[in-house]
């Protein structure tokens, strides 16, 4: 998101454009990253229903991945995942980065 000066933004904190929260990348807040396992996923879409940040990506009714630019890492998707072993697993970002 580009940073604007006080003369370039609407007054009073008003947001004139509907739905522009999409441009706010909340993915940087994440401590745990959801790792999706395509092999075990049954595409029940419980994660898609439960995700508070609309970060479960779909195509033609099937899960295709996770939008990591907006996912805050809350872990609700992993909690809701009904398969065993789970198709979504939460891992510390530092562990993922360090391999």
């Amino acid at each position: 998101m580009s940073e604007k000066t006080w003369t370039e933004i609407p007054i009073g904190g008003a947001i004139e454009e509907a739905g522009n929260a999409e441009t706010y990348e909340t993915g940087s807040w994440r401590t745990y990253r959801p790792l999706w396992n395509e092999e075990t996923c049954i595409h029940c879409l419980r994660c898609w229903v439960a995700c508070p940040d609309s970060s479960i990506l779909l195509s033609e009714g099937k899960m295709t991945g996770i939008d990591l630019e907006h996912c805050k890492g809350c872990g609700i998707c992993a909690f809701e995942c009904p398969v065993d072993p789970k198709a979504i697993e939460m891992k510390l970002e530092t562990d993922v980065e360090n391999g």
Partner: protein
Amino acid sequence: MSRRLILTGNDAAAEAMRQIDPDVVAAFPITPQTELMHKFAEHVADGEVKAELVLVESEHSAMSATVGAAAAGARSMTATSANGLALMWEIVYIAASYRLPIVMPVVNRALSGPINIHCDHSDTMGCRDTGWIQLYSENAQEVYDNVIQAIRIAESPEVLLPVMVTFDGFIISHTAEVLEALEDDPVRNWIGEYKPKYTLLDTDNPMTFGPLDLQDYYFEHKRQQMEAMRAAPATVKKIGKLYGEMSGRPYDLIEGYQLEDAELAVVALGSTCGTAKVVIDELRAKGTKAGLLKIRCFRPFPEAEIAAALKGAKAIAVLDRSVSFGAPGGPVHKEIKAALFGSGSSAGLVNYIYGLGGRDISMEHIHEAFADLETVAGEGTPADAIRFLGLRE
């Protein structure tokens, strides 16, 4: 074109509100404001206005409802006093931050405790930094005139800030005075139809009010508020002039009374200015060069105009009807002192705290202040520059 009426200050505010006929008014009673909304509720009950009167369960709700209505795009008003204003506080600050042009008469009353229902300025002085424009009224005529002007000031595109019109509890609010009121049509034409900058009810252009701002843009939004306040004095002056053209009663940010050649000057706000004018007439008759600086617009504080108006004074007494605990003097005194700093003034400056909790201020008290100023003019600012009028010492 005008009607001579006998009205109390509260009724004068309600009469102005009847003519303004806002879209939404939220009301909760508190002495000495109660009669104002009683009167307005009568206008609603009698079908004289179309306003939606919302009777809420507290002042916090009154300001919340007013903010909600204003955000929806309605011309919105409420009124309060003292502890009611204190209870509103959180939302008072938000109203200004959201740039909602709400107009609120505030009938000045001492903040408890110990409990007191009578006049002082501790309520509105307490929220002088909330981002509201503040207009202080000397009498019922000014209450009426200020409430009408406040609508146009608040709604001016370069301002878009809420306005408090203050007047002294009981002294003005419950005292009947003769005043000149305008006919309905000229007032309604003069304020015009309200065209809000934003409205939550426009479903074709959906938008968000009050989102999370945090470190990202809160600072920039505060800077915008400062800019609106910087633009406001010119607007207050312009609207005051235009109002004068319509009503024959022009208004400015400040008013000087016998001030031009005054060597001894008193600075005051509200009803005390009327008392001071009579004292000045008496002193002038004896040859004393006495004068008054009345501050009508306290927020924004017209620093340059005030420094210019006090340029010739050798001694100045600032009358404060509230205390700023722990600060070097009352709130008006501090601002005057700041305005004079760097202005080249070498006047002696004395602060008088007076009238707290409705303690009467008489002509003798103001004579006392002028008598002190004779000494201050010769000797400069005394060591005991914070003094009291009417306190048992």
